[in-house]
């Protein structure tokens, strides 16, 4: 992340530019099945190549299991199963595990592929209601970066609230 503070002597226009840049939020885009999703970068701790995952019997559907990341125990979630996109997950060489901080707990999210980081300005984010009025709480918006990609912006916290 580059420093956004205006340099001395660049005057008011630089300040304005910085302000505008500050309103942009950075998202990491990834693929789940047929769709592209994105999560705010601040919540992402690490991107991992597939690790051995131990299944936890009787856990909720959508929980793949637990893994150990350098001694820390993390639960791994399959969002595709959670969103009922597919019933099972297949790992290939593009698959990654996103380690995401969800309300203080580090959770692994299986994704088919990691795309890139998008810096979206306010104008490039549409409210989720454009997809219809009844959107699940974890969909917080639609990202429309220049270049034509359509990203479903996710906030994972509601998924893990009881």
């Amino acid at each position, binding site marked *: *992340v580059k420093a956004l503070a205006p340099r001395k002597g660049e005057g008011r226009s630089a300040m304005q530019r910085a302000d505008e840049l500050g309103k942009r939020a950075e998202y*990491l885009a990834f693929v789940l099945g047929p769709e592209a999703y994105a999560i705010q*970068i*601040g919540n*992402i*701790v*690490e*991107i991992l190549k597939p*690790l*051995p*995952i*131990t*299944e*936890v*019997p*009787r*856990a*909720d*559907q959508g*929980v*793949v*299991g*637990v*893994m*150990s990341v350098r*001694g*820390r*125990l*993390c*639960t791994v*979630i*399959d969002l595709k199963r959670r969103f009922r996109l597919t*019933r*099972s*997950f297949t*790992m290939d060489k593009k698959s990654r595990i996103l380690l995401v901080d969800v309300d203080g*707990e*580090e*959770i692994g999210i299986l994704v088919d592929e990691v795309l890139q980081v998008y810096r979206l300005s306010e104008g490039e984010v549409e409210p989720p209601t454009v997809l219809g009025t009844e959107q699940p709480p974890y969909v917080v918006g639609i990202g429309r970066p220049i270049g034509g990609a359509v990203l479903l912006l996710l906030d994972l916290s509601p998924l*893990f609230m*009881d």
Partner: protein
Amino acid sequence: MAELGGGRGDGGDKAREEFFSEAQEIVDGLSRDLLLLDQVVKRGSSDPELVNDVFRAVHTMKGLSGLFGATMMSGLSHELEDLLDDLRLGRIELTDQVLDLLFQSVELYGRILSSVKGDGPEPANEVKALLVKLGQVSPQRDGGGTSFHAKYELDPSLLGVLTEYEEHRLRANIQSGLSLYRVHVQFSLATIDSALDELKARARPHGEIITYLPTGAGGDIETIELEILLASREPLELLQQAIYGPNISISEVRRRDEPSGSLMPPPPGLEARLAVPSSLPAPADVGADADWQKKQRATVPPQQQPPSLAPMAAASPGGRDQSLRSISQTVRVDIRKLDHLMNIVGELAIVRTMMLRLTERARGKSEWRDLAVELQRVHRAFDRHLMQMQNGILEVRMVPLGQVFDKLARIVRQISREHDKQVNLVITGAETEIDKLIVEELSDPLMHMMRNAIDHGIESREERMRVGKPPIGTIALNAFQKGNHVVLEVEDDGAGMDPAVILRAAVRLGLTDAEGAQNLSTREILAFVFAPGFTTKEGVTSLSGRGVGMDIVKTNISALGGIVDIGSDLGIGTRITVTLPITLAIISVLALEVSGRMYCMPLASVEEAITLDESQVRLVEGREVMTVRGATLPICRLFKIFGHEPPAADQQKRFVVIAKVGSRRLGFVVDRLVGQQDIVIKALGKTLKSVRGFAGATELGDQRVGLVLDAASLINEVLASIGESRMPVGIGQIDIPSRVHRLSPGGDAE
């Protein structure tokens, strides 16, 4: 991706943590001091130094909480400080009511602290109520006047600079008939700090130092002379022996009415002292800090000021005013840091295993023999040091049980006053050490046990007299180490529990039926009190309520891997025994395999493992049971309750791991026994907290994670009944609510 990592933790958090731990230490210290004070008052004596300690601790708390914007806490401290100031100045008396207020304040401190941490509601109303009560304790002005010291040959100019506290102490000492001594001491300015402390320490056993002031004499600029006013019961000769030194002279301050041949000359240089302006602030109602500052200004070069936040709580009650040096040898460590170290040890253990494997491979080849021998030696050394490190870390995690006992003593005092019963809490083994995390979890169950013992165990004073018991009840709290376990016993000399009453209640609640009741031993009957919701309240007897909260005790203790046992003799008393593992950080497990997956069963719950003989398995009331050495053992096929695919039918040999928790046994059928291991257990994340049957997970090497089974919860789930394997009928309704688990489609995570 490096920029994704992000910086975690910041200085503010760390300072907050420091605040919490420091405040907690002060609260703990306060609690200890108050208990000591309580004893002192009960003996009918007084301990001004202890009152001072409490005052200073509250003062420190006030500063600390002000610094961190904990307004409720600083408000309470402020009022409390006023009260304590009145106490130490003798304006109010230390009565039981005042002590109650002090105990309540300490309790509220604890609750405010947890609410600031976010662990509970803010006790705003309680604090408000207490503040009102504190305000009602009004000081009665001491009418003693100043005539009391007119009888002594004390310099009026000396009396003029005494603080109110010092004056009060002087008066109190004279009133209790102690003699006054004047000690003249010369100190070198360079070492005055330590030398003065040393002198104070030497003088303390013999009397009380009321004040000390520089005399202004002392020859050169390198030395300073102090005049110390000491009150003591001992004769001059003895004091001269105790407090001796090259530059020390002691003389008695004579009473004016005593016939005396040789009048003491007035201490030299008093006038000179009066000329030093800064050493004489106006005597006013100043707190300890003001006292202290006065002396600082007067006697200590400014660059040698000790830190103002003295770690009071760290000093043991016996050894107040320890030197700063000894305090600096201890460090406060966040338990999570120790957990982290323990994790590293766990990983090193994995490295050790890999090393062993390499050694074995090398041994297999003749040309590598020398290397193998060398490797073997390295492995052994590594193994030894790793063990030492593991033990070292475990040792650091250990804290004396006294930490939680102090809190209990306070609660016992409070509850017994609430119930108007007199109870003596006798504690032994407070020095017994146990894992810090266990200590934290122990206070709730122990509190329930205490409450039960006082509420339902100990009889009223009149009743006790009637049956010929001493009017004051006794609760004994004993702790001792037994192998890798710590045993806690809570024993009361109260009314005991009536098995007949409990059995009636158990039948009424459907825990057993009249027929099943025939075969129960007394111990089994008493165990009913641990059933959730168990109460004898609707029964016909006066023995009501005993057992309320006991299921919580059992649940909490089981969660720590411990066992609760209860024994009671009607009319004589009740004894509850809690057996706990000494640490939670490392446990021994039996690794086993079910449908190709590895699980670990804590060895503490494993009784034995035997080969399964399918022909021995019978169905009783829809449950599979087998007979082991003449006793019926219910069995459970783990693959079934875990929803794994059944093991291959052609597998020739399977095993039964017999687990026992408390008095209940269950056989778990597994495919393979892998072996015994010492593991570092880690908790499953919040997301998995609703999944029952697992105590946590551990790393097995090769980066794989193995789940650790929670034998107690599995047994609960499978047996779904209290009592033993006889499984009385009609028991379903009192089962711990059996949550329905959705079985995940197995095996598709590969």
